[in-house]
C-alpha cells in the first residue's frame, strides 16, 4: 500500500465529502482526487517516477495537500519543505536531497530564484487554484530528473535538525508511514466525519502523520490556515466550522490554557487535541483538562526517525499519569538504557531506544550516522526518559544539544555555522534558554574579532535573517571575550546555559 492509496480509497468512498476548506474555497474528495491525477500526470511528463525526489515549497494550502498526494501518485519521493523556510534553506535542502522537481508558488519562486540555480537541473512547477476552482500548473523551469536507484522505496524525505553543511534528512517508506499511522489511528479512536484544524506547518512530521495521513485516510475535512497562530482565530474557527480535532505543540496549548474568555465561543464540538513536539508542562495539561472537560487532550511522543509516533496517552487520556506521554503503541518496543547500553529498571532515567516497523530506513547519504543511530535494529532517540512499572513513558531531557523552540527542533551547530560566516565573528556558540511560551529560545554567545569590534546585535540579526528561519534567529545575543571550553576545543554548553540567565533581550 502507498500513501496515494489512502486518498484513493477515501475519494472512492466519499467523493462528495469536503476534503479541504481554505478560507472560502472548498474542495471535495472527488475533486481533490481529480486535481491530484492532473498534477501527477504533469509530474510524470516532467520525468517523475520511482526514485525521483520532488520538493514542495508552499505554505499551508489546498495546493500543498494536492501536491503531496500527486507526488506519491506519480511514484516519486515527497521532500516535505515549506514556504515558511527561507529561500536559502530551501535551496540547501533541494541540493542536499538531490531534488529534481520543485513544486512552489509564483511568489515563492521569485524569492527562490536568487538562491537556487535551476538551469537544466531542476524542473519548477508553479501551482495555484484559480478563482474558478481549476488547478493552474505552470512550468517555470525544466531540467532532467535524477533517479536514486537505491532509494526507490522511499515515500517521504523529512529534513530534521542538523548542521548547515550536513542537514539530516530522514527517509521513510510507505510501509513505515502507513504501519505507524494505522496503529495511531486505531488507538485514537477518532469517530467519523471529523473536521480537523491544521495549525502546524504541513512539512512538520507530526502534522504529516497525526493529521494529513491519518485524517485523509478517514475521509475527514481539513480546515487549512496559513496565518500565524492566534488563539482567538482558533476559537472562532472551532465555532464557525464545528471543528472536532486538532494537533498542537506546547505553546499553542499554553495559549489555549491561558485563554481568558472561552465562554464567548461555542467550543463544544472540539473532541481531540493532541499535544506533541515537546513536553507540555503538567500545570498546563491540568488547566486544559479542567477548563475544557469535554475535550480529550492526548499527550503523544514521536520523532521523524521513528516514522513517527512512539507513544500515546489514549484511550482515556485522563487515566494516564500527568507528565507521562502515555504508553508505547502496540508494535513499538521501548527500552531505557544507560551510557553502556545496559537496560535500566523502572523509574530510572536513561536514553530511550525504540524498535518498530515505523523506524526509518536511514538518513539520506549518511550511512555512518545511520549506523550510529540505529544499532541492532534499535533507534537511539537521543531523548532521556523513564518507564514506570505500568509501562508509561516519561520524557525527561535530551542527550543531544538540540533546542526545541515552539515545537521545532533546532540544531545549535546550524546557527553557529551561519554566525561564523560573518567576517567579524571568530567564534560562536548557541544554547537554549527556557521560555514560558516557546519552551526554549536560542541564545548566542559571540566572540568578535578586530573586524567585528563595532558589531551590534541588530547587525547580527540582519545577517542571520537572510540565512535562517525566524525560529532559528537567536532571541538574545551576548558578546564575550572567549567561550568556555572543555579541554582544548569542545564548547562547555552547560556553562553557557548557566550564563544564559543574565542575557539582555534583543528587543530592549
Amino acid at each position: 500500500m502507498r500513501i496515494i492509496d489512502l486518498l484513493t480509497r477515501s475519494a472512492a468512498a466519499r467523493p462528495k465529502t469536503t476534503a479541504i476548506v481554505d478560507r472560502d474555497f472548498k474542495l471535495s474528495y472527488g475533486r481533490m482526487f481529480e486535481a491530484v491525477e492532473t498534477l501527477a500526470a504533469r509530474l510524470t511528463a516532467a520525468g517523475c517516477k520511482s526514485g525521483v525526489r520532488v520538493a514542495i515549497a508552499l505554505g499551508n494550502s489546498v495546493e500543498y495537500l494536492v501536491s503531496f498526494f500527486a507526488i506519491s501518485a506519480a511514484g516519486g519521493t515527497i521532500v516535505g519543505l515549506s514556504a515558511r523556510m527561507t529561500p536559502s534553506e530551501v535551496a540547501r535542502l533541494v541540493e542536499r536531497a538531490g531534488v529534481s522537481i520543485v513544486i512552489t508558488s509564483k511568489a515563492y519562486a521569485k524569492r527562490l530564484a536568487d538562491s537556487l540555480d535551476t538551469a537544466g537541473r531542476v524542473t519548477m512547477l508553479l501551482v495555484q487554484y484559480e478563482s474558478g476552482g481549476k488547478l493552474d500548473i505552470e512550468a517555470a523551469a525544466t531540467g532532467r530528473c535524477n533517479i536514486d536507484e537505491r532509494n526507490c522505496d522511499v515515500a517521504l524525505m523529512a529534513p530534521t535538525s542538523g548542521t548547515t553543511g550536513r542537514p539530516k534528512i530522514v527517509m521513510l517508506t510507505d510501509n513505515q508511514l502507513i504501519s505507524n499511522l494505522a496503529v495511531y489511528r486505531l488507538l485514537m479512536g477518532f469517530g467519523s466525519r471529523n473536521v480537523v484544524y491544521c495549525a502546524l506547518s504541513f512539512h512538520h512530521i507530526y502534522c504529516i502523520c497525526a493529521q494529513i495521513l491519518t485524517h485523509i485516510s478517514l475521509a475527514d475535512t481539513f480546515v487549512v490556515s496559513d496565518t500565524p497562530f492566534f488563539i482567538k482565530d482558533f476559537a472562532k474557527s472551532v465555532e464557525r466550522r464545528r471543528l472536532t480535532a486538532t494537533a498542537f505543540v506546547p505553546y499553542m496549548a499554553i495559549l489555549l490554557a491561558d485563554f481568558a474568555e472561552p465562554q464567548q465561543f461555542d467550543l463544544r464540538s472540539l473532541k481531540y487535541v493532541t499535544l506533541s513536539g515537546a513536553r507540555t508542562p503538567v500545570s498546563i495539561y491540568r488547566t486544559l483538562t479542567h477548563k475544557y472537560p469535554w475535550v480529550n487532550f492526548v499527550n503523544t511522543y514521536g520523532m521523524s526517525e521513528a516514522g513517527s509516533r512512539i507513544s500515546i496517552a489514549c484511550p482515556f487520556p485522563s487515566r494516564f499519569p500527568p507528565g507521562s506521554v502515555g504508553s508505547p503503541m502496540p508494535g513499538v518496543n521501548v527500552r531505557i538504557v544507560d551510557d553502556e547500553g545496559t537496560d535500566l529498571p523502572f523509574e530510572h532515567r536513561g536514553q530511550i531506544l525504540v524498535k518498530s516497523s515505523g523506524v526509518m530506513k536511514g538518513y539520506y547519504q549518511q550511512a555512518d550516522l545511520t549506523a550510529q543511530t540505529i544499532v541492532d535494529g534499535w533507534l537511539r532517540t537521543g531523548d532521556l526518559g523513564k518507564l514506570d512499572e505500568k509501562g508509561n513513558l516519561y520524557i525527561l531531557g535530551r542527550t543531544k544539544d538540540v533546542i526545541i523552540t515552539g515545537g521545532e527542533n533546532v540544531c545549535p551547530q546550524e546557527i553557529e555555522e551561519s554566525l561564523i560566516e560573518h567576517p567579524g565573528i571568530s567564534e560562536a556558540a548557541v544554547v537554549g534558554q527556557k521560555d514560558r511560551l516557546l519552551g526554549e529560545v536560542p541564545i548566542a554567545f559571540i566572540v568578535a574579532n578586530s573586524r567585528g569590534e563595532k558589531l551590534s546585535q541588530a547587525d547580527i540579526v540582519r545577517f542571520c535573517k537572510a540565512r535562517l528561519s525566524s525560529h532559528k534567529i537567536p532571541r538574545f545575543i551576548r558578546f564575550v571575550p572567549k567561550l568556555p571550553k572543555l579541554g582544548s576545543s569542545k564548547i562547555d554548553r552547560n556553562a553557557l546555559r548557566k550564563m544564559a540567565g543574565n542575557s539582555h533581550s534583543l528587543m530592549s
Partner: protein
Amino acid sequence: MNTGKTEPIERSEIIERLSEILEPWVSDIDSIEKIGEHTNLITDLGLDSIGVLQVILGAEKEFGISIDEQELESETFSLMGNLVGIIESKLYENN
C-alpha cells in the same frame, strides 16, 4: 527604549519603530523598505507564528505597554495600521 505612556507619538514614528522590531522576523527582506499603514504583516511581510510572538514582545518593550495575545486575531493584527492602533490604545488608555 521605554516611552512614557502620556507622551504623544506620531503614527509614522510608531511605524518606523515597529519596522525596526519587525526586521529580523520578516521573510522577504526587500519588503521592509516599503512598510506603511496598509502593509499586511502576514501576506506582504510573511510574518509567521514565532515572528508574531517576537513582535508583540518587542513592541511591549519598545513602547512600555502590555499587549494581551488573546485580544489579537489575524483579521485585526495583520494590517500595520491596526497594530499601530492597538499600540496607541495601550499608550493612551490611562489618559
